[in-house]
């Protein structure tokens, strides 16, 4: 089944083109990475998928529908910079916001929402910090709080913008564990991520982006030298690392 379909997606900020004619189909129930150099349009593509930027051409369909129609089935985790860190909210309040999408004007969260927020906090190992303020947490802990908020949304499609950027090792383990857990539950997860060896090791599907679509497909087919050259130019050290990881993975598959 197809979760996301992009047809000729083109986005401009003023005169600056950020995405150019991107056409691809992303399968449901997979762990999908979006990869590309800085300024490649990765964040822009995610934002387009939640309907936050206007397309100057083309079309995006989520589960066969316009993004605005399926908001409740989609969870978006922005890059970290957009938040007001001094806002007077506790960690628990922030996670609870994951349920706000389904609450109408004037409605207050109910017991089920509190329980959901609590479970989400437990999943990311932050239940002991529920009453603290965001500004009192380390960067990695803050990232886990936003991951918990995304989980509290109970969506079918998760779009995460660099959830692993600049986090500590423990948080990285938590995030990767949550991603795999989501896949196990049959959710579709799209993650902007930089570390090609984690992708080679753990992800199913990859979108290589550099303004245009360079390649899109299953990890072993797409993460080839030729494609990576297309996206990054010649940073060979990194590329041979990836080749090595992929080779190991192939062997693991072969031997069971």
């Amino acid at each position, binding site marked *: 089944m197809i979760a996301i379909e992009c047809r000729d997606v083109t986005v401009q900020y003023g005169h600056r083109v950020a995405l150019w004619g991107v056409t691809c189909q992303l399968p449901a129930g997979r762990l999908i990475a979006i990869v590309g150099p800085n300024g490649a349009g990765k964040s822009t593509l995610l934002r387009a998928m*939640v*309907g*936050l930027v206007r397309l100057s051409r083309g079309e995006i369909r989520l589960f066969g529908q316009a993004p*605005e129609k399926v*908001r409740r089935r*989609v969870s*978006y985790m*922005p890059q970290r910079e*957009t*938040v*007001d860190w001094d*806002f*007077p*909210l*506790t960690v628990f*309040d*922030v996670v609870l*916001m994951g349920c*706000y*999408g389904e*609450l109408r*004007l*004037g*409605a*207050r969260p109910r017991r089920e929402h509190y329980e959901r927020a609590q479970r989400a906090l437990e999943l990311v*190992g932050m239940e*002991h*910090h529920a009453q603290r*303020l965001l*500004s*009192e*947490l*380390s960067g*990695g*802990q803050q990232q886990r709080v936003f991951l918990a*908020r995304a989980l509290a*949304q109970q969506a079918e499609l998760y779009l995460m913008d660099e959830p692993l950027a600049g986090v*500590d*090792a*423990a*948080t990285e383990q938590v995030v990767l564990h949550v991603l795999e857990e989501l896949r196990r539950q049959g959710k579709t997860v799209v993650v902007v991520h930089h570390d090609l060896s984690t992708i080679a090791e753990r992800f199913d599907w990859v979108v290589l982006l550099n303004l245009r679509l360079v390649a899109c497909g299953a990890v072993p087919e797409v993460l080839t030298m030729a494609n990576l050259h297309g996206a990054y130019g010649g940073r060979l050290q990194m590329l041979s690392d990836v080749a090595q990881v992929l080779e190991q993975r192939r062997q693991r598959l072969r031997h069971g």
Partner: protein
Amino acid sequence: MDVVWTLATAVTLALACALLGSFLALRRTLLLGDALSHAVLPGVVLAFLWSGSRELLPMLLGAGAAALMATLLLELLQWRFRVHPDAALGAVLATFFAAGIFLLSRFAGQVDLDAECVLYGELAYVPLELVSVMGVEAPRGLWTSAVLLAGVGLFVWLAYKELALVSFDPTFAASIGRSPRRWSLALMGLTAAVTVVALELVGAILVVALLVGPAAGARLLTRRLPQMLLVSALLALSSVGVGYGLAWAFDGALAGWIAVVAGGHVVVLVLLRRLRKAPASAQEPFAAEQGDDHAQQPR
């Protein structure tokens, strides 16, 4: 009886301003009231030139129109041209007020208008104008501020989630279908309405002090949004109460004393915080630990 009417009006207005001000403080647009109370001037002058009288209604309409234009301009600057809120506030305040001054001097001959007395009211005069609504007689000012308080209260009650959401994380808010732009405009529009109406009742200084003081004080005292709203309401009450006490003890304008107390709260709180913080931070240098921690804090 007059004192009771005056205080009741002041309290009602102070509560409305404190609630609104709290959300303005969180969005770092606390000076919106200040900007708007200056921005109404060209509207007032034009209304006077156009109607040729000092009737209240044309003045209010002129002021309202100017405030509305200022609000829309602010919205445009912030969201379309991505100007930082405080820069946008400053620019709009200066331009509109300057336009008002220009109009005043340009038409000085025809304008027998002291804008101060026409639009800028005075708390002490509130009990002079009684209006009876459904058989109950009370000052017009009290009725008006009661309507304002009800409006603000209803707005905050209904849109509490949305206001928190769009102020805290606008990108996420937009992703779940809550437009930050629309909610910001709603908040600014309501502030404009409150400012214009309150200007006419109690004057610019008091309105601005009530919008800024209790909210800024509450922001310093509390860690969570619901507490912040509650504390700002308490500070609003104490501003009026203590202000009244001081006006009684030392004489002088009640509005002035209330404004002084509303602002004074903030100064005192900042100083207290300084005093308390200095030794405390020396004792626990790593209150917010860095790096990471599966080792959770004992609570």
